[in-house]
């Protein structure tokens, strides 16, 4: 660790609320020790080589002042137009009961903050928290040590949650910086299904640093649809650590859309612990300006006969940077695994960059795996073809980019959500690229 990194880590450790680390908070204590042991990533850390988040934390944030709680705020303009949903709202990293809407959930579905849960639920939370999120990531440890508030969602067996649950994070950075750590623990029992849409936004232009941690357990024959929308034009620095564990015959579809932000790092970790599982995880990043978006994904096939398919696409303009790292592990027992990965990128300017790296580690011998990554420019010949038919340059460009990007949406099943995302992508390409 460099001296600067040490000093900021020291500040972060000292800024902690002592009450967090009293007796009964063994988890937080352990995480704190882990964070201090791992340290913050530097440019020499393999997993953060291209993502100077620690530098940004050093330069832009003060750790001595705490982020104020926010009693209320108008959230209307941040709600996605995706029809009727349940709603969980976080303001400056704290759950807002007033702004959340959880009436009408199916019987026995639990949505509760960790603190407000009844004693039975608390013990369930205790038994699940941290079980699938073993990682060496400093920001996962930081989140585990410092999360302000956690939400537990429990879907009992054979329950189809009909409306999606929207998790909206809103940070008020109008007057001062925001530092927030939030957590989501989701357990979907046998034969059940749930759709979660997570969206983060901020007000103002002061810097925001937000770590997210999601732990989602998908039991036998259950389905999880998870969509993450990162379209916050503020001075946003985010690190997400998403852990999904799949049991036999479960299905998981994830979609990560990144349109804005300063530094956005998404760690998506999918553990296929069952047979006959199906996982689709797609992502799209359309970035410009100085945005850096970094998607690190891991899919770990531990059991035989499952299928995973990953497709990430990116369009980068101006000085924006993209990073993609996709790991596929196929463990010795995971025979008959089908695992596919692709990452395709278009660079729109000479100053935009992409660092892409597929990493396949396969110990089983009877598997079908493939990966591919491409990086190119917009097809000039296609652009001329469209123009020669009367479509002006800007529209022709948007049309081609849209066509390039669109198939990642195939993983989104909810038609309202799909239409909303489609609109978001199309508008973005027509206005900003």
């Amino acid at each position: 660790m460099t001296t600067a990194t040490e000093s900021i880590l020291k500040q972060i450790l000292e800024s902690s609320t002592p009450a967090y680390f009293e007796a009964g908070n063994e988890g937080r204590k352990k995480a704190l020790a882990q964070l201090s042991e791992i340290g913050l990533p530097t440019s020499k850390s393999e997993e953060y080589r291209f993502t100077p988040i620690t530098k940004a934390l050093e330069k832009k944030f003060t750790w001595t002042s705490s982020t104020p709680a926010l009693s209320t705020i108008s959230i209307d303009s941040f709600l996605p137009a995706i029809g009727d949903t349940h709603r969980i709202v976080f303001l400056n990293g704290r759950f807002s009961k007033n702004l959340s809407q959880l009436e009408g959930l199916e019987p026995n579905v639990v949505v509760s903050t960790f603190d407000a849960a009844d004693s039975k639920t608390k013990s369930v939370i205790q038994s699940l928290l941290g079980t699938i999120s073993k990682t060496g990531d400093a920001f996962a440890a930081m989140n585990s040590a410092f999360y302000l508030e956690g939400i537990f969602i429990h879907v009992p067996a054979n329950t189809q949650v009909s409306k999606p649950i929207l998790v909206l994070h809103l940070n008020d950075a109008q007057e001062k910086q925001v530092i927030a750590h939030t957590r989501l623990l989701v357990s979907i029992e046998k034969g059940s299904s749930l759709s979660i849409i997570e969206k983060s936004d901020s007000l103002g232009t002061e810097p925001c640093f937000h770590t997210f941690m999601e732990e989602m357990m998908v039991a036998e024959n259950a389905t999880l649809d998870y969509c993450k929308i990162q379209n916050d034009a503020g001075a946003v620095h985010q690190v997400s650590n998403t852990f999904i564990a799949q049991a036999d015959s479960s299905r998981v579809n994830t979609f990560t859309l990144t349109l804005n932000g300063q530094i956005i790092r998404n760690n998506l970790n999918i553990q296929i612990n069952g047979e006959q599982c199906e996982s689709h995880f797609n992502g799209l990043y359309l970035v410009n300006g100085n945005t850096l978006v970094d998607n690190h994904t891991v899919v770990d096939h531990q059991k035989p006969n499952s299928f995973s398919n990953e497709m990430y696409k990116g369009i980068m303009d101006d000085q924006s940077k993209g990073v993609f790292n996709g790991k596929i592990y196929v463990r010795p027992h995971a025979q008959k695994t089908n695992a596919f990965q692709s990452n395709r990128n278009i660079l729109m300017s000479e100053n935009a960059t992409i660092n892409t790296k597929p990493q396949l580690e396969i110990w089983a011998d009877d598997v079908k795996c493939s990966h591919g990554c491409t990086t190119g420019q917009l097809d000039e010949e296609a652009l001329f073809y469209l123009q020669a038919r009367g479509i002006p340059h800007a529209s022709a460009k948007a049309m081609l980019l849209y066509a390039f990007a669109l198939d990642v949406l195939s993983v989104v099943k909810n038609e309202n959500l799909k239409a909303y995302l489609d609109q978001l992508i199309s508008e973005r390409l027509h206005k900003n690229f």
Partner: protein
Amino acid sequence: MLSIKNLQARIGEKEILKGINLEVNAGEVHAIMGPNGSGKSTLASVLAGREDYEVTGGEVEFNGKNILELEPSDRAAEGIFLAFQYPVEIPGVSTINFMKTAVNKIRQYRGQSPLDAVAFLQLMKEKMKLVEIDQSLLSRSLNEGFSGGEKKRNEIFQMAMLEPKLSILDETDSGLDIDALKIVANGVNSLRSKNNATIVVTHYQRLLDYIVPDFVHVLYKGKIVKSGTKELAKELEAKGYDWIKNEVALA
């Protein structure tokens, strides 16, 4: 309608057009023939506004407007259509959507209101018959996986949709069997009127049996070296291009 005066163009350092003069009036069909590398496709591309070529001299007026100043899309909106020798495959964009955008962008340029879905569909159905193209093909990604014949028919379908004043067919016969050639030629012929004009760029006389030109020009080394009627095309078919080359060499 189209007046080309002393047009010169190059790609990189290479001079390709070295002073083209050509007048095309409404109602006429002009064929431009010539050996490979003579500049035929370059001329077609320069007229449509392809950026790879740099115009180094001369003028091109289209209905009184200097089109060399215009963006390719504006040239299309003014009524120039280039049927590509190699139509581009564009995954993710269906011909229908593409044409709807094109038709309405051109209407917008001309100050007309956009066609609604019903009117567009009607127009499309009408034009589909003309080139015997199936709607299922048009719902697919533009030209992706199309056969050579399907691509060329799609070009003529687009031409029918956009109703250009000047159509430039760049080697439209290449890669077509005789049946496809007839369908494409029929499409072109039925779109001919006294108000529009056609330039047919071709290496072979074959296409000209079906799209009969009023004038035939031979392009060689970046210049039009000989002009005549459809008889000239027949002569070229019989004798090849060598006698023209010799004539040029002697002159």
